[in-house]
């Protein structure tokens, strides 16, 4: 009964926390009143919008998510330098763009969204489309000699970790 009331009031507890933090950051100074108002917004907004986000993922490991974010930020930095090098040195005639197809083991929409977002943010790859039943992800690679290696890397580096986060 109590957990049902909790689910009804806070359909997405993490979203509530996030909204409160965003509100406090928007004010750009920390005061008790603003934090209270942020928490109020954090309760009301998920409650109103829960119609459009009815099911939340069952498991979510925050610690693994933080480690994943650090890895992704590091990869963004490294890949930026690599892609800048490609832009400046590889002529158009020798550029080898490719489509690669990533078979999805993830089933939760939130996890697939995170994977697609990660792939787009790391330069050199853009996630373009999902298959109609959601079993594969279409990714465009800017320049690669070995498309299979890119697929292996995305699978091993991101998909496996995301699977552990949403267990």
């Amino acid at each position, binding site marked *: 009964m109590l957990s049902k009331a909790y689910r009804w009031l806070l359909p997405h507890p993490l979203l509530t926390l996030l909204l409160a933090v*965003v509100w406090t*950051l*928007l004010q*750009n100074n920390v005061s008790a009143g603003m934090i209270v108002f942020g928490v109020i917004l954090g309760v009301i907004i998920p409650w109103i919008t829960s119609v459009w986000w009815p099911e939340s993922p069952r498991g979510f490991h925050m610690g693994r998510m933080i480690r994943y974010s650090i890895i992704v930020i590091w990869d*963004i*930095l490294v890949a*930026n330098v690599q*892609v*800048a090098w490609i*832009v*400046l040195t590889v002529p*158009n005639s020798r*550029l080898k*763009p490719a*489509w690669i*197809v990533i*078979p999805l083991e993830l089933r939760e929409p939130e996890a697939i969204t995170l994977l*697609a*977002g990660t792939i*787009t*943010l790391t*330069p*050199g790859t*853009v*996630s*373009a*489309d*999902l*298959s*109609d*039943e*959601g*079993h*594969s992800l*279409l990714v*465009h690679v*800017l320049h690669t000699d070995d498309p299979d290696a890119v697929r292996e890397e995305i699978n091993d580096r991101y998909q496996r970790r995301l699977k552990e986060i949403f267990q």
Partner: protein
Amino acid sequence: MIPEVIGSWAAALCLLIGAGFTLVGSIGLLKFNDSMTRLHAPTKVGTVGVGAMLLASVIYSFTFAEGSLHELLIMGFLFVTAPISANFIAKVNIHRRACETPPAPPQDDTWSTLNVPEQDRETVGSGTA
């Protein structure tokens, strides 16, 4: 005195890095001649280019004024919205056949952008194709 010197040098370095990556992103946008490869350039500017400039802003505000963390929000919102707009542009490219047709997915029938609803199938088949 010393922290101010370090702060301004660090902010200047971040500005230069950000400007450099933004420049490379713009060069990429001009240089590539295919709509899909061109899409790769803005994703770079959106991450390290803007990120380094915002970092410069944070460093400057903490050195010379009251600290400000607004910039983290800008970065957060960019990281959330950039993949979505890139995805939309990619979908438009696929839909208008402005790029090489992607290979068929191994398990399902087709890509969702290329999928035609059943009631529209005949008109598309006889009309444009």
